[in-house]
């Protein structure tokens, strides 16, 4: 066995072992902590599979933002957790649940194992036609041009998630500021980090967006880094979360999908189909959409984390 395959087997074992540990963990806070580690190990698997773009997204979204959301949820559940854990469901329910879970796991394994080898793929077609857009990263090509519809809908889903959270706002706080006001020692270490890191983080976020044209990276990964910087500043108490009724905030939230839609409809008129870019302007149009998308992703993710408005504007 070579060093590389030993590493891969060890990595797979660690990922599976950690997943089992998360499922069996007694405390939801510990499980959420384990999930963060899991979300950082999974990117290593993606790197081994050659999916650097997926690895970046997984680390940022799976490990980072989902982890923070789960930790927040676990902290909220903390007071009622012992009561909930105490009421165990009956044997029949647990048996049915485990049979169903095992069935799904086995079906997934069967589907993956039954795929023809080599699997059906459109990758050669995507690489072959990459000249059409002037972008060097085939993943960005697929996301922004060949399967642009999926990406557009994905961004709308993100917006729907935020609307879902906002629909939980009590009437008297509608339009108010999300979450609690964070207080931190203005001369403390967190405030220091929140002053030092954002300039670097903003540059790195925009860099990740920009290199996404030719290398792994893109709007989602860049936007996540920007969102993290925003959250850091809010958590350190240096800046309050904006009231959700602000017009500029609403405009930022719809900028990405909005410009995407406008360009898409323009394609109907100038090109030959919805979301077809006129080939001479393909790259500038895609960069414009990605820039707007980055801001939208950053604002949306930041507000998803900030939570339900609990204060007046």
């Amino acid at each position, binding site marked *: 066995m070579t060093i590389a395959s030993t590493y891969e087997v060890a990595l797979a074992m660690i990922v599976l072992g950690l997943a089992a540990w998360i499922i069996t963990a007694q405390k939801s806070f510990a499980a959420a902590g384990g999930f963060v580690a899991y979300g950082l190990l999974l990117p290593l698997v993606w790197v081994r599979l050659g999916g650097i773009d997926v690895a970046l997204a997984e680390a940022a979204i799976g490990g980072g933002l989902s982890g923070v959301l789960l930790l927040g949820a676990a902290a909220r559940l903390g007071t009622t957790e012992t009561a909930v854990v105490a009421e165990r469901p009956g044997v029949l329910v647990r048996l049915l649940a485990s049979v169903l879970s095992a069935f799904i796991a086995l079906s997934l394994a069967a589907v993956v194992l039954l795929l023809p080898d080599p699997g059906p793929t459109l990758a050669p077609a995507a690489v072959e036609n990459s000249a059409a857009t002037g972008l060097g990263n085939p993943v960005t090509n697929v996301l922004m041009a060949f399967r642009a519809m999926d990406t557009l809908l994905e961004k709308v889903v993100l917006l729907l998630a935020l609307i879902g959270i906002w629909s939980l706002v009590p009437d008297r706080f509608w339009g108010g500021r999300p979450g609690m006001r964070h207080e931190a020692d203005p001369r403390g*270490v967190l405030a220091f*980090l929140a002053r030092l*890191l954002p300039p670097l983080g903003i540059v790195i976020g925009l860099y990740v967006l920009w290199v996404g044209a030719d290398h792994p990276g893109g709007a989602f990964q860049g936007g996540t880094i920007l969102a993290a910087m925003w959250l850091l500043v809010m958590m350190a108490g240096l800046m309050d979360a904006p009231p959700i009724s602000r017009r500029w905030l609403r405009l930022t939230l719809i900028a990405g999908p909005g410009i995407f839609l406008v360009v898409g409809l323009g394609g109907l008129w100038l090109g030959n189909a919805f979301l077809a870019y006129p080939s001479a302007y393909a790259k500038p149009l895609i960069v414009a959409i990605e820039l707007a998308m980055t801001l939208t992703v950053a604002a949306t993710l930041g507000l998803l984390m900030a939570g339900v408005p609990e204060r007046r504007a």
Partner: protein
Amino acid sequence: MSAAFNIMTIIAVSAGAFFFFAGTIGLLRFPDTLTRLHALTKADNLGLGFVVLGLLLQAPSIRDGLKLVAVWLLVLLAGATVSQLIARIARQDGASG
């Protein structure tokens, strides 16, 4: 020349792996939060430092080398900040576990 670089890389990355290993053992075996944090910082500072040092010798360009150093510095910054925050909470709670 490249053989010498390779040997130095192997030595440095192995030293890094050793510090990660020692840090992990410390995290598992040390009795309270503060000493565990102390063990963790060894993994961050020295472990990652040695790994980066080893990989610097293999970096294809100065730009890539600078990126590696930047990664190490950012991890140092994040690690130091988080350690401070955890340590402060541990002291406030007076918790030993």
